């Protein structure tokens, strides 16, 4: 019962509202109030906000470009390392190749000692 009465008091309290007259009077008063915001300050703050936004976008673009560059560079390195391994294998085995193959190895691994079989 007590709980119900308290809830009822809270509900009724929520119905308290300012009058329309007061609302419009105060709104008018707020519009009359001079601000500490001269136009130049407004301009500079807008500019500052714009610059901050531009900075964020530029940073994001740089980060994206860096990631793309890094991933492509990694993939190039991977290709190079595969070629290196092949060259090393060729060097290790000193394989016997035909003349036709020797031309190919000469291009791919010019320093490899190739024994051309007869």
């Amino acid at each position, binding site marked *: 019962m007590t709980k119900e009465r*308290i809830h009822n008091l809270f509900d009724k309290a929520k119905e308290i509202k300012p009058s329309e007259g007061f609302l419009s009077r*105060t709104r008018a008063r707020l519009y009359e109030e001079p601000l500490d915001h001269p136009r130049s300050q407004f301009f500079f703050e807008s500019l500052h906000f714009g610059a901050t936004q531009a900075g964020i976008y530029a940073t994001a673009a740089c980060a994206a470009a860096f990631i793309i560059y890094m991933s492509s560079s990694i993939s190039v390195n991977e290709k190079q390392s595969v070629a290196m391994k092949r060259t090393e294998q060729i060097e290790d085995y000193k394989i016997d190749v035909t003349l036709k193959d020797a031309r190919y190895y000469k291009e791919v691994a010019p320093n490899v000692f190739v024994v051309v079989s007869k």
Partner: protein
Amino acid sequence: MEDLDKELVRRARLGDKDAFAAIYEHNLPRIYRFIYFKTANRATAEEITQEVFLAALRAIPRYHDEGFLVSSWLYEIARNKVIDFYRSKKSDISIDEELEERPELTSTDFVKTMETKIEADKLKNLLKKLPEDYQNIILLRFVEDLSNEEVAHSLGKSLGAVRVLQHRALKALRKLVE
């Protein structure tokens, strides 16, 4: 809602009065209500409410976003303005100025308004018998439906302190109603 609140504050900080007017219109009823229950009458509540929004308009360029709705900040200003009001020892003005202030009311509206006012006055009289902290907690938590976090931010108290105060305030109010 939170995003809109933030956007309005951002624009108001840059001197956009329309944005501040939107903040004002959205928050006026709750700030007025909070002050109404803590002061003597409608006229005083209106006077202090206007002071709160004028102070907020002047201070908004220095507003620091702490992740709460702007209403928490406005309650903080309102609480301080009410303290200032009692410190300045302004005398109580006679209670009933309803019709003088609101000539637009029809007789049906008037009866309804008076019923609300009578019930609201009951709560106001009960609140007067409670310590200030209890009054604030009851108004913000149960009349304005703020979360514990928002109440804590508005009153400058820890979350734990708000929970304890809330429990004690309700207990005290229940005792008065019984």
